[in-house]
């Protein structure tokens, strides 16, 4: 039996009366690189954001390393009431890092301070140790020359690489990427994708929501096609992109790659 680092069971998510996720089950093994594709409104970003509880689940369960996140305090018919304490969520987020579409860097801090912040404030490391780690991670994303720059002085691609350094500095077991290149100018997309690719080669467990199908094809060990709040089809990159079983998947991929070179 495979040991799963993250397991999702019967996940649903509603915003008011609008059900965005309609029951998702997923097992993720260590070292998997999962690309999540799908049209806008398919729920792919919401799904990713549920995994580190940027959104709270409406129903369903998430297990991290076999332990269920949150405490079930009762049942209301079929629906469990689960309490997610702030402390639990902070612990989960230390282990499940996230990179956002809009970077969400702290504009009042330098590049170095951005990366050091979590190490000092959350992990309680000394400034010296945090600085060492931060510099090493920033070297990894090729930004060691920008330590003292502020986010506003960087290009979008550089900002996103700082955000990646900030996330990996926390040594998360899983990394989530929420459309990391969608707000970048086309010529800056490559540098960010290369950085993500390097991380994948290190054997990290990663989930990536993306519109860059070419990258997903080369990068992912598994591809999920989300449609209407469910995993419509999944398989290896080869299976999904070259031989999709569902007509809907086929149509999505054809539409998305219509104008590619």
């Amino acid at each position, binding site marked *: 039996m495979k040991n799963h680092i993250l397991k999702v069971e019967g996940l649903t998510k509603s915003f008011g009366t609008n059900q965005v996720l309609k029951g998702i089950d997923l097992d993720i093994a260590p070292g998997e690189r999962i690309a999540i594709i799908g049209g806008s409104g398919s729920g792919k970003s919401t799904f990713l954001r549920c995994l580190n509880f940027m959104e709270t689940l409406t129903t369903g369960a998430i297990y991290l390393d076999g332990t269920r996140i949150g405490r079930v305090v009762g049942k209301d018919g079929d629906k469990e009431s689960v309490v997610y304490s702030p402390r639990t969520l902070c612990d989960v987020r*230390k282990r499940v890092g996230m990179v956002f579409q809009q970077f*969400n860097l702290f504009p*009042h801090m330098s590049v170095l301070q951005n990366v050091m912040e979590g190490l000092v404030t959350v992990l309680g490391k000394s400034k010296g140790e945090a600085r060492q780690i931060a510099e090493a991670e920033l070297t990894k994303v090729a930004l060691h020359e920008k330590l003292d720059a502020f986010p506003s002085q960087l290009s979008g691609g550089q900002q996103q690489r700082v955000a990646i350094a900030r996330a990996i500095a926390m040594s998360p077991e899983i990394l989530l990427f929420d459309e990391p290149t969608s707000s970048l100018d086309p010529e800056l997309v490559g540098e960010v994708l290369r950085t993500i690719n390097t991380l994948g080669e290190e054997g990290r467990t990663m989930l990536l929501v993306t519109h860059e199908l070419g990258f997903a094809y080369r990068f992912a060990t598994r591809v999920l096609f989300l449609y209407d709040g469910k995993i419509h089809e999944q398989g290896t990159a080869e299976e999904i992109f070259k031989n999709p079983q569902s007509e809907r998947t086929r149509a999505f991929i054809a539409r998305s790659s219509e104008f590619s070179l």
Partner: protein
Amino acid sequence: MAYEWDFGVVLAQWPLFLKGLGGTLLIAAISIGLGVILGAIIATGRMSRLAWLRIPAGIYVDFYRNTPGIVHFFWFYYALPIVADIRMGPLEAAVLALTTQSASFYCEVFRGAILSLPKGQWEGGAAIGMTRFQTLRRVILPQAALRMVGPFIERTFELIKTTSLASTLAYGELLYSATQISAQTYRPMEVYTVVALIYFCLLFTFSLLARRVERRLTHV
């Protein structure tokens, strides 16, 4: 017939003007200090997830926003002794009225600045495992503080001008001095012109200072 201005007799009363100015500065300073503290507490309540903190804080702010300032002065000075048997001097009543009302305005200054920051800043903090409080302290407040400066100065000017309402409680601030001098000299036009000039000089000096502080803060 042209009015004959005579500032001489009025200006001869300068010690009384000075005393009034002192009274104005005293209640302004106390009320700003206390108002900021109370305002921060109420802002925390208004932004709390707990309804029993959030709702009363909201009512408080709505109350002060929708009632005229002078009513608060009268309440503390005239009504409180009758309904609750709490008696206080004009200074205490004026400070309480000013503090409680400026707290509601400062609360909105703080809250407005905090809410003006994009949600992504909270999420950026949360994503690396920071608690809400850590994110507030390390990420949100340092940025919000800069956005508070302008509205804060604006509100403080309003507060300083509102101190003139304390004259209705016979508290010895600038306007009360003016009433007295006016009664002695029969020169109300000159007296109130001088008062206006004193307010103008005071606030204009403050605004020059404030502009300098603002520029320094926002250019870091």
